[in-house]
């Protein structure tokens, strides 16, 4: 029996497929990708992100050193100078004022460096708005980003210094929490 060399040929099942058939000559390789689910997903994502979009941006920079307390009946945070009372230090707009132990050691109710810094910031703000003929722009808003374990002894000094520098509307930054169930049902 003669030896038959195996040749490259397809099985009958594959040969019957359109892809492997050479009967019709030229075949286009154009394949259309179905993008409808992709567009659906994009639309839902955009809607979700736009609904969560905050035009004011990030006023506070979160850090592990400051654990904010939780409150339910809050208002929106206004862009204003931020005083950070961390576990150990007090900062105003990123400028370190000192350690809490040092700042609460004296019997004085104010923190002179904080008051000075706030006055400086107020002057800058007013000068900037005076250049634009907007003299009633200063509202005296200030945000306090305090750690929840901070004591009132430092808070009262910070608040007093804010009031002394003309920042009378003080906002305590809090994390949004659930409303308490009411007692009367």
């Amino acid at each position, binding site marked *: 029996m003669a030896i038959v060399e195996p040749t490259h040929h397809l099985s009958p099942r594959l040969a019957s497929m359109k892809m492997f058939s050479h009967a019709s000559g030229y075949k286009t390789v154009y394949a259309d990708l179905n993008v409808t689910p992709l567009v659906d997903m994009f639309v839902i994502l955009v809607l979700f*992100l736009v609904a969560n979009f905050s035009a004011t941006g*990030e006023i506070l920079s979160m850090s592990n050193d400051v654990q904010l307390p939780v409150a339910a009946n809050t208002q929106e945070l206004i862009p204003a100078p931020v005083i950070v009372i961390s576990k150990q230090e007090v900062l105003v707009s990123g400028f370190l004022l000192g350690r809490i132990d040092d700042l609460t050691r004296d019997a004085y109710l104010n923190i002179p460096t904080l008051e000075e810094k706030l006055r400086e910031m107020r002057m800058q703000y007013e000068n900037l708005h005076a250049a634009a003929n907007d003299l009633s722009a200063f509202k005296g808003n200030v945000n306090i980003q305090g750690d929840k374990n901070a*004591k*009132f*002894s430092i808070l009262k000094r910070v608040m007093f210094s804010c009031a002394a520098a003309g920042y009378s*509307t003080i*906002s305590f930054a809090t*994390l949004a929490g659930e409303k308490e169930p009411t007692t009367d049902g």
Partner: protein
Amino acid sequence: MAGGMDLGGGGGGGKKPLDSAINLVPFIDLMAVTIAFLVMSAVWTQVGALQVSQSGQAASQDQAQPTEQLKPVAILLREASMTISFGGQPFDPIQITRDEKQKMDVTLLAARLKEVKSQEPTQTALTVTAEDSVRYDDLVRVIDTCTGNGFGAIAVSPASG
């Protein structure tokens, strides 16, 4: 991907098919850019603010009202107890109890504030006087409870001064 619109088979005469595909590529591009922008600018932590004033100052101009006729409401907050006074008359002190997460229980405070509010419904001003050892978390919780019970103009003052 091809950018042109596929308007069916070309030439050959006869009737042209009416179905046409909208080119979605620019739309996908726009969506991708918008999503990238929104994800980068998103603020994921929901932060709110409780507005207070130093004692002796009006909370804000629009909330200033003639409080002379109204009985003043004040809370003296200590580390372990608090006392509400209404028109200068103090109620019984409330002992502060906490849960396992050190969260203060404010049920009794809310009930007292409701009682006060029912007697003086137009009063929105309240002064919280706190001692030095009071935790910021407790103070915020008390202010939050007061705000939730209709006292919007809250002033904070130190106990010693």
